[in-house]
C-alpha cells in the first residue's frame, strides 16, 4: 500500500496534468534530440562498418597500394611466387542508378574463384549452382544483386539495370539474384553490385590495377613472411584499421552534433527545473502544513524527488520513443553530410543500439535530477510557518536575484577560462556550457533591471495596464525568470549558430575567390563533391591545352593518402609564380616557402597543422609508392575544403614518388576574350565520348557553396529543435503562471477590466518577457558565436574563420523571442479572458 504521505504528493501532478505534461514534453524533447543524434551517428557508422566488415569478410589482413592501387601482376606473383592462396583481389567503386539517383550502389569487382574463404556467398566453389556466379565471367557487363536490392531497384535476372558509373551511363545485365534473407550476406549484398573484377576494371577505368587484396593469415609468422615479400609501395593493414581510420574522419562532425544535441538537453533541463519550481511554489501552503504536522525536511525532499523522478522517467521513456522517430529523420541529413564530406555510406535504416538508448535515458534522468536539485531543496526548506502568503517567497526571490547573477557571472568567467585553457574539445564544450548557464543565471537580475528601466516608459506610453504588466514580470520573477532564461538560451543559440554559419560562409566564399582562379575546371566525374580522386583519361590534358583560347593549364592529381591517423587529402599540382597569390598563409614566409616547395618540401593545410600540432620546419611522413619519406613542411596555408587536412606537393615530384603520372583535374586559364561557358561547351564537344566534369569558375564556386550549405542543414535542424524545446518551456511557464493567477485576474475583472484589457495585460507581459530574452540573447549569442568560431571550430575542425557580424541575424533572433513569447501567451490569455469574475474569485 502506498503511504498516505506519498499519495499527498503523487496525486499533485494529476491535479495539474497540463503542467506535468509540459514538463514531460520538455524532458522528452531533450532526450529525443540527444538520442536521435546518437542513433543517427551510430547508424551511419554501423552501416559503414557493417558494409566494410561484410565486404572484408573473413580477411585478417589487407594489402593496399598507392593512389593508383596495386598492379594486378602483383596479385599473380602473390599467388604463384609467394604461394598465398588465401588472397582475394578486389575493386570497389560506386554507381548511381538512373531511376533512383539518390541511391548509391557499391560496385564490388571480385574474383569469384578467390572468394570461398573470404565471402562464401560470392564464391564459385562451394555454393549452390543457381547463384549464377560463373555467368559473371562469361557475360559482358553482367552483375549479381542481392534479392533485397534487386527488389528495391525493381529488376529481375535477365533484365538490364541502367546505371551511371564514372560519369558514363551504361547497362548492367543482372544475371542472378542472390537470396540474402539471412546472415552475413544480407549486409554484404545491401546496395552492392557484384561483378567480375575484369568488368569492374573496365567500368571504373582501373586497367591493370586492383584496389586491394584481402588475405587470411593464421599467425604472426605468416604475417612476417608476407611482409617481407611485399615490394615498396604495397602495405599491409587490417580491415579493422582501415575501417577505423575511415570512421575516425567523422569524429569532429559527430562531436559537434552531440554537443548541439546536448544543448537541447540543457534547454530541457530548464524546463524541468521550471516545472518543479512552479510546483514547489504552488505547494508552499501544502508543504508548510506538512512540515507543521511533523513531516521532516528529508521526507519532503524525498517526496519531491519521487515526483520529479516520475516526470523525468516518463519524459525519458517518451523521449526514447520520440528520439527513435527523430533519428529516422535526421539519418538522411547525417548520411548526406558524411557522403558530401567524408566517405560513401549507404544508410537507410536506423540501428537502435542499447548504448545510445541507455545514454539518453541516463542523461535524461541525471539532467532532470540536477534540474530538480534546487526546487527540491527549496521545498525541503519550506519553513513550517509558511502558512502565510507567497509574497514572502517572491520577496526572497527578488532579494537573492543579485546573488544568483553574481554566481552566473562567475560561471561565465569560469566558462571562458575553461574554454581558453582547456586541452580538448570537451573542455571547450564544458566551458560553453558554463558560459551558457552563467548567462542564464544573470538573466533574472537583468530582467529586474530592464523592467525597472522600462516601467516609466511603459506607464507613459501603455498606460496603467502596461505598468501592471511590467510590475507583474518582476513580482512573479520566481516563475518568469527561468522561462526568460530558457528562451534567452534558445535565442542565443540561434544567434550563435547563425553567426557561425554566416562567418563560415563569408570565409569560404572569400577563400574560394582567392584560390579558384582558373576560368574552367575539368575533372573526372566523381560520386561526391569532395572526392576528386578519379583519374582523368590519359591525353585529356594535352588535348585541352591545344584548344584555341587556352593560355595555360594547371594540373592536379588528388588522392586520399593513408597516414598513421586519419587519411588526408593529397594534392599534387603545378605551381608557377602566377599561382602564388592563390595561397593564403597561416604560417611561413612565401619567399622561403616557394623555393623549398620547388626543392623537396610540402605545404600543408591549417586543419592538418592544428590537429597534429605541425609547424613550418617539422616533417610529415608520406607513405609513397616508392617508400616512406619524411618530408619537411615549408608552409601552412588556409584551407576550408576539407577538415581532414591537405598535403600539397609539386606534380613532378608526385609522379616520381608515386610512380603515377595520371591527373585528376585541370584548371584552364583562357584568353580574356573567351567566354568561359562557351569554352566549357568547346571542351565537351572535344570529348564527346569521355565522361568529363567541366565547370566554369562560377559554377564550381556555386557548387562548393551549395555543398557547404548542405553541411549546415543538420545544424539548422538541431537549432530549430532547441528553439522548439524552449518554446514549450516558455509556454509551460506562462501557462502555469497565468492560470495560477486566476484569482487575481478574477479580481481585476471584478473591478472592471474587460476581457480585451486582460488580453492586453497578459500579452504585454509575455512580450516583455520575450523582449528581455531577445535583448539578453544578443550579447550572450555573440559570445557563444565567438566561442564557436574561435575556439570550438578551431579545435575540432582546425579552421580559422573571419567573424561576420550580420545585424539581420540579431533582428531575426529578437523577433523569434518576442513572437515565441507572444504565441505562448495566447493560450493562457484566451483561458483567462473567458473566465467570469465570479468563478475566478471562488477559485482556491
Amino acid at each position, binding site marked *: 500500500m502506498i503511504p498516505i504521505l506519498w499519495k499527498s504528493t503523487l496525486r499533485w501532478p494529476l491535479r495539474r496534468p497540463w503542467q506535468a505534461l509540459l514538463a514531460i514534453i520538455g524532458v522528452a524533447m531533450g532526450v529525443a534530440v540527444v538520442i536521435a543524434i546518437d542513433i543517427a551517428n551510430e547508424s551511419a557508422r554501423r552501416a559503414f562498418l557493417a558494409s566494410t566488415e561484410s565486404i572484408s569478410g573473413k580477411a585478417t589482413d589487407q594489402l593496399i597500394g598507392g593512389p593508383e592501387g596495386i598492379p*594486378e*601482376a602483383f*596479385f*599473380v606473383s602473390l*599467388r*604463384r*611466387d609467394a*604461394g598465398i*592462396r588465401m588472397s582475394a583481389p578486389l575493386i570497389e567503386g560506386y554507381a548511381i542508378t538512373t531511376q533512383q539517383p539518390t541511391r548509391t550502389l557499391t560496385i564490388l569487382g571480385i*574474383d569469384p*574463384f578467390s572468394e570461398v574463404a573470404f565471402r562464401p556467398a560470392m564464391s*564459385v*566453389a*562451394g*555454393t*549452390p*549452382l*543457381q*547463384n*549464377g*556466379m*560463373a*555467368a559473371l*565471367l*562469361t*557475360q*559482358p*557487363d553482367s552483375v549479381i544483386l542481392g*534479392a533485397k536490392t534487386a527488389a528495391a531497384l525493381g529488376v*529481375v*535476372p*535477365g533484365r538490364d539495370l541502367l546505371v551511371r558509373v564514372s560519369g558514363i551511363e551504361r547497362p548492367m545485365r543482372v*544475371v*542472378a*539474384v*542472390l*537470396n540474402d534473407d539471412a546472415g552475413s550476406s544480407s549486409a554484404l549484398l545491401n546496395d552492392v553490385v557484384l561483378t*567480375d*573484377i*575484369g*568488368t569492374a*576494371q*573496365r567500368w571504373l577505368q582501373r*586497367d*591493370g590495377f586492383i584496389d586491394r587484396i584481402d588475405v587470411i593469415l593464421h599467425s604472426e609468422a605468416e604475417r612476417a613472411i608476407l611482409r617481407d615479400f611485399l615490394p615498396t609501395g604495397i602495405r599491409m593493414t587490417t580491415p579493422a584499421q582501415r575501417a577505423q581510420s575511415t570512421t575516425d574522419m567523422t569524429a569532429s562532425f559527430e562531436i559537434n552534433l552531440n554537443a548541439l544535441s546536448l544543448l537541447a538537453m540543457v534547454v530541457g533541463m530548464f524546463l524541468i527545473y521550471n516545472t518543479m519550481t512552479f510546483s514547489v511554489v504552488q505547494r508552499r501552503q501544502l508543504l508548510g502544513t506538512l512540515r507543521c504536522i511533523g513531516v521532516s525536511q528529508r521526507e519532503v525532499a524525498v517526496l519531491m524527488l519521487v515526483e520529479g523522478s516520475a516526470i523525468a522517467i516518463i519524459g525519458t521513456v517518451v523521449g526514447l520513443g520520440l528520439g527513435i522517430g527523430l533519428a529516422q529523420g535526421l539519418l538522411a541529413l547525417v548520411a548526406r553530410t558524411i557522403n558530401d564530406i567524408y566517405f560513401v555510406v549507404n544508410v537507410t535504416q536506423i540501428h537502435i543500439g542499447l548504448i545510445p538508448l541507455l545514454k539518453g535515458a541516463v542523461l535524461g534522468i541525471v539532467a532532470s535530477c540536477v534540474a530538480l536539485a534546487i526546487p527540491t531543496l527549496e521545498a525541503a526548506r519550506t519553513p513550517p510557518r509558511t502558512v502565510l502568503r507567497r509574497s514572502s517567497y517572491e520577496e526572497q526571490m527578488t532579494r537573492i536575484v543579485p546573488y544568483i547573477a553574481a554566481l552566473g557571472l562567475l560561471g561565465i568567467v569560469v566558462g571562458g577560462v575553461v574554454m581558453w585553457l582547456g586541452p580538448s574539445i570537451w573542455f571547450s564544450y564544458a566551458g560553453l556550457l558554463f558560459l551558457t548557464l552563467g548567462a542564464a543565471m544573470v538573466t533574472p537580475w537583468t530582467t529586474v533591471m530592464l523592467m525597472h528601466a522600462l516601467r516609466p516608459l511603459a506607464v507613459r506610453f501603455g498606460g496603467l495596464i502596461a505598468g501592471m504588466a511590467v510590475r507583474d514580470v518582476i513580482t512573479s520573477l520566481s516563475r518568469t525568470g527561468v522561462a526568460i532564461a530558457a528562451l534567452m538560451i534558445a535565442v542565443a543559440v540561434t544567434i550563435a549558430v547563425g553567426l557561425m554559419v554566416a562567418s563560415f560562409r563569408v570565409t569560404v566564399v572569400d577563400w574560394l575567390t582567392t584560390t579558384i582562379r582558373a576560368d574552367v575546371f575539368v575533372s573526372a566525374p566523381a560520386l561526391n563533391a569532395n572526392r576528386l580522386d578519379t583519374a582523368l583519361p590519359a591525353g585529356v590534358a594535352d588535348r585541352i591545352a591545344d584548344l584555341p583560347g587556352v593560355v595555360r593549364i594547371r594540373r592536379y592529381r588528388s588522392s586520399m593518402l593513408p597516414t598513421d591517423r586519419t587519411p588526408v587529402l593529397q594534392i599534387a599540382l603545378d605551381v608557377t609564380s602566377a599561382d602564388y597569390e592563390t595561397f593564403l598563409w597561416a604560417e611561413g614566409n612565401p619567399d622561403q616557402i616557394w623555393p623549398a616547395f620547388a626543392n623537396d618540401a610540402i605545404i600543408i593545410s591549417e586543419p592538418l597543422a592544428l590537429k597534429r600540432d605541425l609547424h613550418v620546419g617539422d616533417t610529415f611522413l608520406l607513405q609513397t609508392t616508392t617508400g616512406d619519406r619524411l618530408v619537411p613542411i615549408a608552409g601552412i596555408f588556409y584551407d576550408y575544403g576539407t577538415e581532414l587536412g591537405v598535403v600539397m606537393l609539386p606534380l613532378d615530384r608526385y609522379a616520381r614518388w608515386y610512380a603515377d603520372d595520371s591527373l585528376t583535374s585541370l584548371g584552364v586559364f583562357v584568353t580574356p576574350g573567351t567566354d568561359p561557358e562557351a569554352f566549357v561547351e568547346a571542351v565537351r564537344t572535344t570529348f564527346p565520348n569521355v565522361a568529363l566534369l567541366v565547370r566554369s569558375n562560377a559554377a564550381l564556386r556555386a557548387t562548393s557553396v551549395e555543398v557547404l550549405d548542405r553541411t549546415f542543414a543538420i545544424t539548422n535542424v538541431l537549432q530549430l529543435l532547441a528553439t522548439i524545446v524552449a518554446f514549450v518551456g516558455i509556454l509551460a511557464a506562462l501557462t502555469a503562471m497565468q492560470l495560477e493567477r486566476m484569482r487575481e485576474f478574477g479580481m481585476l475583472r471584478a473591478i472592471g477590466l474587460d476581457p480585451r484589457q486582460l488580453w492586453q495585460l497578459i500579452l504585454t507581459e509575455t512580450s516583455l518577457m520575450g523582449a528581455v530574452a531577445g535583448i539578453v540573447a544578443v550579447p550572450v549569442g555573440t559570445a557563444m558565436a565567438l566561442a564557436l568560431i574561435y575556439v570550438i571550430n578551431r579545435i575540432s575542425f582546425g579552421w580559422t574563420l573571419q567573424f561576420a557580424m550580420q545585424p539581420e541575424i540579431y533582428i531575426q533572433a529578437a523577433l523569434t523571442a518576442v513572437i515565441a513569447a507572444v504565441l505562448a501567451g495566447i493560450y493562457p490569455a484566451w483561458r483567462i479572458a473567458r473566465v467570469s469574475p465570479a468563478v475566478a474569485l471562488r477559485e482556491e
Partner: protein
Amino acid sequence: MNPHTHVRRAHIWWLFAVFLSACGVQAAGSTAGQGYLTVAEGMARPATAGYLRAEQPREFSFPADHGPHPDYAVEWWYYTGNLRDTQGNRYGYQFTLFRTGLPRQSQQVPASKWQSDAVYMAHFTVTDATNQTFIARERFNRAGLDLAGAQAQPFQVWMDDWSVASSADNPGQMRIQVADGDVALDVTLDARGPTVLQGDAGLSQKSAEAGNASYYYSMPRMQTTGSLRIGEKTIPVTGLSWMDREWSTSALGTNQVGWDWFALHLDDGSDIMLYQLRNRDGTTDPFSGGSVRNTDGTLTTLRASDISWEPKGEWLSPHTQGRYPAEWEARIAPLELTLAIAPLVADQELQVTVRYWEGAVDVRGTRRGVPVRGEGYLEMTGYADVR
C-alpha cells in the same frame, strides 16, 4: 580397346563444366541452397559452340600434346599414385587439373587481363594409410593473368603455385609440386613403358554419334620418387603413378547415376583398368569394360561381359551419408583373374565441390590359381548424391 574408358574422369569434368556454363540466368531460391553439386546436375549439357570436336584420329606428337588444346572445350591432366616411405608405410596421392573453355563470346569487349577463355579446377589429395588419414584440397582459377594455365614447351600445367612440369631437356620426366598449408607433395615421375593411345589410336568414341569422342592417352606406369609432407614431417617416398590425358568437346549420356573405376598396378608388371557404369535402374551399363596392359606390353581389351563386379560390405560416409561399397571383388573371366580390392583408408571421400570417393587401394588375388598382389586407385561416384 573399349571406346568408353575415358568415362570415369569425364563426369567430374562435366559437373565442373556444367557448373560454369549452365548457370546463366536463374532466380535465387529456385532450389534449396545446398553447397554441393549432384551428378544429376552434372548431367546437363554445357554449350560447346565455337569449339572443335574430336571426329577423326589424329597424329599425336609429344611433348606438344602434353600441353593445352584450347580449341577443345575440355581437357584434363590426371595423376594418381601409391607411394611408400623407407619404413614401408604406405601413402596415396591424387593430383588433377581440369581445364574448361568458357562459352566463346560473340561480341568482343575491351580486354581486361582478367577476362579469360578458360577456367581451371584442381584437386589434390593425400592418403596416409598408417595413420588412416585422408586430406583433400580443391582450387579454382580463371586462366586469365596466368593464375592458372598450361603450356607444352617446356611442359607445365599450373594453378597458383601448384604445378606439374617437365624440364625442356627431359620431356619424359614430370615433376609434381603441390603444397597447401599442412600438406605438400614434391615428386618426380618417370614413364616406364610406352605411352598408351586409348581407343582407336587415341580417338576414344563415346557413343554412336559422330564427334561424341575425345582424344585420349595414358602413361599407366610412372616410376615416382620424391617427398611428401604431412604436417611438420617431410617423408621421402617412392612408388608408382598413373597419368591420364584427355581433351574433347562433347556431351555424355544421361542414363548413368555413377561409376566405379579401378586403376591397378600388379606386382607382375601388368596394369589393369576396369570400370563399371551403373545405370539409374541399378544395372551395369553394357558400355562398362576395361583393359589390361600385359607384362609383355600387349593390350587386352575387356567388355562388360568379360567382367563381374561385386561390392562387399558397406561404408557409410559420415560427411554425405552416402553408402559406398566397402570393398570390391572383380572377376575377369578371360584372364582367369580374381581380385579383392580394399581401400587403404575407408574414408577417402573428397569433401570438395563435386563429392566423390577416390583413393588408394590394396589388391590381392589369384591369376589362374597363382596369388598376385598389387595396389592402385579406386574411384566411386554417384553414391553420395543419389536420394
